[in-house]
């Protein structure tokens, strides 16, 4: 009985210390932020308009393909990644999957005013302009048509890796994704991305461990929430696409998760058996001396 009392004291002191240096300290150092908004309620989006994909096709092909490739529809990139990055600061995205990755409201708002929708207007002052021009001179219906076209050509299904590649890899590398082949490096060469973003965007290999899943969700949804003034744009991913991005980061950064979770319970069962036998042995030995 006395030993249980002592154990209780030890456990209580340990738990108070643990609570203080982990949950409590982290709640103090990382203030709570609002939950992610996947509806993008704050943007000037479609305004309830329904688009016509056929009309959108000719608009996109006339206005967008000078800079953007749409590989799926037979519009290859006009220049290689390095040259494109030198021209624009960053490699422009291929539009084949945009209709799937990005929220339609966000996409419409982005076409109208890219810097505003992606919340990076603070970067484009003193005569600097966003590499993509604003299309707010177009009719709202035309913008809705373009969004409808992009959605119509988007693939039904994409793997986690494909989503990550299209959404993140223009700026971010994730080298553990292909450590030996090197194919998961950022597409924009370092010197250009550094000039464009102000600093080299971090490699994301270990971000699932250094930031954790819930931080990544709120961060990707709106980077300004956690890092006010950051150069990273709000990319406007749908909830599904964002989940795929984080899932890919987990596959790469914590690739042995399944193995760990499979082995853990077996280890613990063995140890419980060991503990039972140890207590039985103890009882048999101490019977002689008490």
């Amino acid at each position, binding site marked *: 009985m*006395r*030993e249980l009392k*002592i*154990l209780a004291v*030890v456990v209580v*002191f*340990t738990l*108070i*210390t*643990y609570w*203080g*240096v*982990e949950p*409590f*300290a982290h709640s*103090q*150092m990382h203030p709570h932020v609002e939950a992610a908004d996947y509806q993008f309620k704050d943007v000037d989006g479609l305004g309830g308009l329904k688009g016509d994909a056929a009309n959108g096709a000719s608009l996109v092909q006339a206005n967008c393909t000078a800079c953007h490739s749409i590989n799926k529809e037979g519009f290859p990139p006009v220049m290689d990644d390095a040259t494109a990055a030198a021209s624009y600061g960053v490699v422009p995205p291929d539009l084949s999957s945009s209709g799937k990755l990005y929220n339609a409201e966000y996409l419409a708002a982005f076409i109208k005013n890219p810097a505003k929708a992606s919340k990076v207007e603070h970067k484009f002052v003193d005569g600097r302009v966003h590499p993509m021009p604003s299309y707010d001179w177009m009719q709202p219906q035309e913008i809705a048509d373009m969004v409808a076209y992009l959605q119509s050509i988007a693939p039904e299904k994409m793997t986690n890796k494909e989503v990550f590649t299209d959404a993140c890899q223009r700026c971010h590398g994730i080298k*553990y994704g292909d*450590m030996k082949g090197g194919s998961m490096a950022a597409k924009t060469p370092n010197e250009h991305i550094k000039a464009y973003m102000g600093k080299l965007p*971090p490699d994301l*290999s*270990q*971000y699932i*461990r*250094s*930031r*954790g899943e819930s931080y990544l969700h709120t961060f990707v949804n709106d980077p300004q929430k956690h890092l006010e003034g950051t150069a990273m744009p709000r990319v406007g991913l749908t909830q599904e696409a964002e989940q795929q991005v984080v899932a890919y980061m987990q596959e790469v950064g914590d*690739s*042995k998760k399944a*193995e*760990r*979770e499979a*082995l*853990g319970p077996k*280890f*613990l069962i063995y*140890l*419980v058996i*060991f*503990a*039972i*036998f*140890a*207590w039985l*042995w*103890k009882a*048999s*030995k*101490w019977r*002689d*001396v*008490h």
Partner: protein
Amino acid sequence: MAKFTKANSVGEWLDQRLNTTALNKVLMTEYWIPKDINFLWAMGVLLATTFGILVISGLFLMMYYKPDVNLAFDSVNYTIMQEVAYGWLFRHMHGVAASVVFLIIYIHMFTGIYYGSYKQGREMIWISGMLLFMTFSAAGFSGYMLPWGQMSYWAAMVITNLFGGVPIIGDALVVWIRGDFNVADATLTRFFMLHVFLLPIVIMGLIGLHFYTLRIPHVNNQSSEDIDFDAEAEKYLSGNKKESKVIPFWPIFISKDLAVLGIFLIFYFYLVFFHYNFAMDPVNFDPADNMVTPAHIYPEWYFLWSYEVLRGFFFDVGPIKAFDIGLAAFGFANAIFLLLPFLDRDPAVLPAYKRPGFNVWFWILMVDLIVLTVYGKLPPTGINAWVGFVSAMLFIILFLVLPIITKADAKKRGA
């Protein structure tokens, strides 16, 4: 040379040459431990086991780890964690054990303080134990740096900077310790050597010394009763096991240790598999970057209390700089436990609950250490800075008044 006859068994063959029977008696079956002990006395065996886990898992990690600033981070986070079969298991075992070992050390230490196990004849047990604690701290710190993560890099920067406070030679000392003007490759390589060779060897030597110091004064017990070990041992050997106040180390004492160890291992491996994060600061999964400081710099949890004593003095007093006062307090905090046997002026060995003044002192110390630990991690701004100051002052005052309190306790008892 002694006469050797033909041995009838391997045991006998060894006994003739190594006297294993006598050795076994001295170390195991006739090494006497008081019967009146509780599970807190099993912490020694838990520590030995945890140290064993650290050495073995460390050997496996060392096979793949690269002590080079360009390779270190990836060798840990990619090679060991993803490529090597069960590398993640060894890393988590090592990382979690490095943290848990300090929890057990602290429990072991405060058990000793509570039951007065550092006093009158047992001073060397205490001193060798504190030396072990210091060496473990150095090993923990040098190992923490090896994955070359962002937090460990900046923690190393802060800690090595402290030596700059040493009068006259400070600046040169910092450069000498780092091997460079900055925490850089030279620092990493030498910390690697310290962590994998020099400090473990010293720890093993100190563990030997710590065991040896127990031999003559013997282990203390729950009521701190002064036992005549020879007389009690004779009782035990003559078959009077129930009346004897002592038990042999093997198999009686160890059977209880193993039972406690069983529970401990469940707890430990639960952490390894399902809660390894607590022992690994997330910031350390960002590679070290000497151009960007983390938002908050703090050491691992087991150093937070002394870090907070260092930070607690945040204002200059007259011509003395806050940094120098903090440094002196930090030095005090790290050395004062070593002197505990000499600060306690009570001539009797008694558990805290039989010494009213000391009992209060003990629990205030425990609470103060927890407050220091928690506030050591929080940003030292606003009210936090004052909590840090008050608890750091309290820590120092507690040790200054200890001789008076213990003497008063003895006087009240009429000793």
